[in-house]
């Protein structure tokens, strides 16, 4: 148990603080000055970096750890996604990794003593053509062989599940069926960052915000520390988890990566009364949508066709996503959109991540999650921490090393990744 006594969030503590007008809540984490050296320095204070720090401390007893973040915790892709969590990937390697993450999600709120609002409302992947339906059957069968829940639904069942969906046969994109993963769902993304941050801090991890890494120190082929805007920090091991800026960081150490950074956009509507209680995704027409607990519709668009680091995307990509949503859900045509944003995602040629060692000793990379990073946060952190602690890939991460781009053992998940790269 990481939290005890007054530090533990509970119904009782909520009541107690409520009676005092919520004026005396303890800080969720410290803001320490950086020490001269750490056993492990994690670059990137998003979900993956914070989860890695937490599991290093919790599972491996490595507590002399710093997480360095150039902005604020969870300010990048962790809170720029559509917060969907699922594990219905086609290939064994990816399915095992994402299912491992999904199992961690199921007990994450208890584990972190922080309500991450994980809601297993189910995810539908729509099929609009015969080939879509063949792919869906194949994927669902593969999932079930891997012990992952999944069903193929016919249009009647889809219509019963989501009455607002236009399931008529003369629709612009007729719905011929769908895959259905009931255990999938959504989570509150900033709570994930905050929960991991608070739990890692409680175990002694130093979280440093507004601290930018300007160089990675490599001596005789060994990474020994990072130069930051707050001075030099020595490190036994340097572990990067910076998504969109992975290539930039790798370049500091002379490492090349097969990732390309692209903007991925999402948008959110005004709040509506509850009308959509599952997640609906459509690969063919490219839009995905869910409704948050406070009523906004969260809509995911595609990834831009060209590289970009600016956290801004192309408008035509949003337009295409909304065209698809309006055709699928005629009732949403007059819904007004509130906010639009983009995250910089590090896409890999096979739509699968890179987790593991690098050509530089004691330098580790966890990147290339592309459009699917959020759902894997707990699993990614767990296997990455294990990889760092033991200087070898965790068994689940073995297929995801950098070497696969030389051996040719790619894991093509473009179909199940959901977002067209």
């Amino acid at each position, binding site marked *: 148990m990481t939290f005890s006594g007054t530090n533990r969030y509970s119904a009782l503590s909520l009541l107690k603080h409520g009676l005092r007008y919520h004026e005396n809540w303890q800080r969720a984490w410290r803001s320490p000055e950086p020490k001269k050296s750490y056993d492990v320095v994690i670059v990137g204070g998003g979900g993956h970096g914070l989860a890695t720090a937490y599991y290093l401390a919790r599972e491996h007893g490595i507590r002399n750890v710093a997480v360095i973040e150039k902005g604020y915790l969870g300010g990048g892709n962790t809170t720029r996604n559509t917060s969907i969590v699922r594990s219905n990937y086609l290939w064994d390697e990816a399915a095992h990794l994402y299912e491992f993450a999904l199992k961690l999600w199921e007990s994450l709120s208890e584990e972190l003593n922080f309500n991450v609002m994980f809601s297993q409302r189910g995810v539908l992947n729509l099929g609009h053509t015969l080939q879509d339906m063949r792919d869906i059957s194949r994927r669902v069968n593969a999932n079930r062989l891997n012990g992952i829940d999944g069903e193929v639904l016919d249009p009647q069942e889809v219509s019963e599940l989501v009455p607002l969906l236009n399931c008529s046969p003369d629709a612009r994109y007729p719905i011929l069926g769908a895959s259905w993963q009931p255990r999938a769902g959504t989570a509150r993304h900033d709570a994930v960052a905050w929960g991991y941050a608070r739990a890692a801090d409680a175990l002694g991890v130093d979280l440093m915000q507004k601290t930018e890494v300007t160089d990675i120190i490599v001596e005789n082929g060994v990474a020994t520390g990072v130069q930051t805007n707050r001075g030099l920090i020595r490190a036994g091991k340097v572990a990067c988890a910076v998504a969109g*800026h992975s*290539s*930039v960081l790798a370049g500091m150490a002379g490492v*090349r*990566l*097969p*990732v*390309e*950074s692209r903007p991925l956009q999402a948008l959110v509507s005004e709040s509506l009364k509850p009308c959509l209680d599952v997640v609906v995704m459509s690969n063919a027409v490219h839009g995905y949508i869910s409704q948050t607990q406070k009523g906004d519709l969260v809509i995911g668009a595609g990834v831009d*066709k*060209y*590289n*970009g*680091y*600016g956290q*801004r995307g*192309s*408008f*035509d990509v949003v337009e295409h996503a909304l065209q698809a949503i309006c055709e699928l859900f005629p009732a949403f045509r007059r819904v007004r959109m509130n906010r639009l944003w983009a995250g910089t995602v590090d896409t890999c*040629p096979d739509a699968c991540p890179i987790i593991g060692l690098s050509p530089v000793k004691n330098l580790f990379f966890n990147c290339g999650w592309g459009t699917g990073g959020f759902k894997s946060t707990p699993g990614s952190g767990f296997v990455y921490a294990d990889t760092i602690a033991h200087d070898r890939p965790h068994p689940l991460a073995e297929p995801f090393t950098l070497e696969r*781009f*030389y*051996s*040719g053992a790619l894991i093509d998940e473009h179909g199940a990744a959901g977002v067209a790269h």
Partner: protein
Amino acid sequence: MLLIACPYCGESRGEEEFSYGGEAHIARPPDPDSLTDEAWGDYLFFRKNTCGVHHEIWFHAAGCRRYFNMSRDTVNQEVLETYRIGGQPRFTTQNSKR
């Protein structure tokens, strides 16, 4: 929305007329069979992924249907120049104002 001047057509047109071809100036190895796995993997998959001035190939899909090169700042999305295949860029990360 990027406005792109195709160096063959000359006119500035919206990005939807074009498709993207990735990093430019990557020569196909003259003798692929002689390459090591590392060199072949590097040619196929590893890219500069520049944060700053990026030289890239574009295709004027809804126009003259010709390939050309472009220098673009990947942070602020400014199109700095377009130039024909075989040409060399005037803008680089070193000489641009960033």
